């Protein structure tokens, strides 16, 4: 009747310009997506050269993974907190408290390892629920609730341990954190068991990639060319096979890596594919809009914190098992490493943006820097400064990229 045709017309003109904008957008988002991954590779090469090949030696790689596993587990729990626009400063103290509780139950009280682990995970959930209650339902800012938690649980650790360090844990407790695939009798009997897992992993990854590609084509979602898919898959196969081959040169697959891979897969799935994950992102993007869409934002936030408690408990178990002791000062500053991992991995401080894989890459950047500098004999003082600068540079780079659009 009136300007509708006209409106369609004028928008037709805009379409081409918008499309070119979009292409540019996808390129820069791709750059952002892989920038930190590329940075990780460059850092690794850099230290590989400076350490005369020690950094990427099979033994050191195993060590690097085991050393950083608990930070990475914390980062997996931290990312959803950061997505909802919150933060958890208490996880370092929770790690210590869980270690102390496990030590007391197993070493002092003689409880079985299995029961103690379950008890510790339950306590982790409780701690998360405690903090989630204050953040979500009383609406005390997460920064304050978890700052209080940092003091509360550090204090609790000291009360439980009475200032002492408890050790040693039984072998079975240390198993996941310290052992390798070959240490399991079943796998020890199979030659090349690590390599076989590598092959299976590569096959699964390729299948998932191809499946996702086909689905995208089917739904008419824009995809890259088949060539890039091929290159990507070739790269995946190479990385899987080479990594497992490389690890098998030392003692094989560290068990903790299997746990870590499992957690990464599960949490990536939750974030990307599930209703709950989408709600977490939406809540961080616009809380009011999410609430007015009938989503119980308080409960979403509460569950995110409960999960953080659980992850902190897992990290606490792994850390105490790896060190084979429960110490009052365990886990100091872990929260900062976990938060930094998320930010370096591209999470937004205002919420709504970030990925699990990004946080893992961020954690590995920090871990590689630590490890490389340690091998070179650079003191902890310089390490701290350099890590600080990397965090600042990574976030500044992100913000620069976004403002450029």
């Amino acid at each position, binding site marked *: 009747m*009136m300007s509708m045709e006209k409106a369609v017309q004028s928008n037709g003109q805009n379409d081409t310009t918008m499309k070119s904008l979009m292409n540019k957008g996808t390129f820069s988002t791709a750059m952002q997506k892989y920038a930190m991954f590329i940075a990780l590779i460059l850092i690794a090469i850099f230290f590989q050269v400076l350490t005369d090949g020690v950094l990427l030696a099979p033994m050191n790689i195993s060590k690097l993974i085991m050393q950083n596993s608990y930070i990475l587990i914390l980062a997996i729990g931290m990312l959803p907190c950061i997505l909802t626009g919150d933060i958890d400063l208490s996880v370092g103290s929770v790690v210590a408290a869980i270690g102390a509780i496990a030590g007391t139950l197993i070493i002092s009280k003689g409880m079985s390892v299995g029961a103690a682990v379950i008890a510790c995970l339950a306590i982790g959930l409780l701690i998360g629920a405690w903090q989630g209650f204050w953040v979500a339902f009383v609406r005390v800012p997460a920064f304050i609730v978890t700052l209080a938690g940092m003091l509360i649980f550090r204090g609790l650790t000291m009360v439980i341990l009475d200032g002492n360090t408890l050790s040693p844990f039984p072998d079975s407790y240390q198993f996941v954190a310290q052992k390798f695939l070959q240490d399991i009798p079943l796998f020890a009997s199979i030659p090349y068991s690590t390599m076989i897992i590598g092959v299976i992993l590569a096959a699964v990854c390729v299948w998932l990639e191809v499946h996702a590609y086909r689905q995208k084509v089917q739904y008419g979602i824009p995809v890259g060319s088949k060539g890039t898919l091929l290159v990507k898959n070739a790269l995946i196969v190479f990385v899987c096979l080479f990594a497992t081959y490389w690890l098998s040169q030392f003692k094989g697959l560290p068990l903790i890596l299997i746990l870590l891979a499992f957690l990464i897969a599960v949490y990536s799935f939750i974030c990307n594919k599930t209703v709950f994950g989408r*709600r977490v992102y939406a809540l961080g993007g*616009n809380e009011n809009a999410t609430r007015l869409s009938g989503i119980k934002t308080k409960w979403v936030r509460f569950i995110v914190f409960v999960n953080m408690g659980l992850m902190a408990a897992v990290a606490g178990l792994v850390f105490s098992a790896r060190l084979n002791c429960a110490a009052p000062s365990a886990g100091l500053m872990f929260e900062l490493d976990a938060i930094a991992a998320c930010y370096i991995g591209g999470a937004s401080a205002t919420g709504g943006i970030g990925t699990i894989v990004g946080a893992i890459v961020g954690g590995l950047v920090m871990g590689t820097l630590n490890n490389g500098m340690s091998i070179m004999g650079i003191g902890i003082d310089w390490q701290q400064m350099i890590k600080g600068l990397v965090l600042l540079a990574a976030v500044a780079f992100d913000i620069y990229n976004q403002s450029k659009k």
Partner: protein
Amino acid sequence: MPKVLLEMKDIVKEFPGNVRALDRVNIQVEEGSIHALVGENGAGKSTLMNVLSGIYPYGSYEGEICYDGEECRFNTIRDSERKGIVIIHQELALIPYLSVMENIFLGNEKQSHGIINWEVCRAEAMKLMQRVGLDDLPDVPVNKLGVGKQQLIEIAKALSKDVRLLILDEPTASLNDDDSEKLLNLILELREKMGVTAIIISHKLNEVTRISDKITVIRDGRTIETLVKGVDEITEDRIIKGMVGREITNRYPPREDTPIGSTCLEIKDWTVYSPYVAGKLMVDHVSFHVKKGEVVGIAGLMGAGRTELAMSLFGKAYGRNISGQVFKDGKEVRLNCVADAINSGIAYVTEDRKGQGLVLMESIRENISLPTLSRLATRGVINAHKEVKVAEDYMQRLHIKAPGIFQKTGNLSGGNQQKVMLARWIYADPDVLILDEPTRGIDVGAKYEIYCIINELAKKGKSVIVISSELPEVLGVSDRIYVMNEGRFVGELSREEASQESVMRCIMESSDSQAV
């Protein structure tokens, strides 16, 4: 021949990605005149003013700006302000917790050696406030004042900078008729008494035709024409023709005679208190109903309590101590949270697209499916295929213009954002759809499409409640109109009885009786 104060010649402004926002725009503003700038959303009005005020610095655009007889090359807002060019943006730039006086002199403090002389500030502020007709104390925090008064503070702030050319971007968009009138009179008065030249960007054509001496129409980044009062015919239809490029015969699609069914939603004695101010009644014993296939309008001034009424109905999303009864299809329902309301077949499309409506950093697809995710999922895992199909389907049906469903909603124009919100709630398939200011700040073409969507919904037997501050809109789309004032329903008018006069009469009479 009056002196030309400002001339912008062949202004071209491009954004990255080859988007030409301004394409050889020319505009001449005479000293002491009121010059209106009109055009659809995205036509380039605000971009032009940003070029003029130095927000886009010299060098980022092509063309020439002549002001007061000399060529100007502004690099920052400060440069243009020094010349007496002050821009007041649509979103007011006041600091809510600071006082009127502090806001007026923000960035321009009366100081020596970095120490503020508050006595001078106060005296000056009082003078300025008097000039714009504000009788509050200079120490009142601005968040205690209404939007109308805040707009006046912005003007006082401009006056403190010795303004010669005042640019107002949609100054009356969020004002009620009364406050708009005051503001427009003030602009006329400033011109009379102080010779302040003004450029006004506005969608409200009745205001534009009333106060401006010249009207420049911009379309797709080009100047189409400049109408001069007394020379050209200036009517709203004439301006709209220039804006959209063709004559508009009807601004509202005709309401077809669709049968109106049984009562779908009935509210009795709905009462809501403010969650912020203890004991303040926001909605006062309101009763109303809406039938199947009926479009009901709620008219009223800003602050009448319409949004508060709608949001409190929508699962108590607003308010405290809510009482009253809700009947859906004759049965009483209790709506204690938003999910309850949605499950009972009620949807509310907010007036605040960016603040409460969309997740701007997420895509069209994600925004459409937000309230209905569980419907698109099996055992908590989203069916991506279904979600994409739904989004594409609705993008087509509602004519959402975007490169694709993966476009971030933050990059869309206001009209398309509004359509994304409509798509979201239409897909939720409610029986009652409450639309709060569904066309605020969007262009004429998109408005028409939204009116068509409203008719379409009614035809399908949905009940639609339209809340709008624009009286012609309420009159144009509704079958029946409730008039709300100061938290109460003060009138109910059928389509035949309703006119701008009858609605205003309801409001005025109720305010009078309140005063007695």
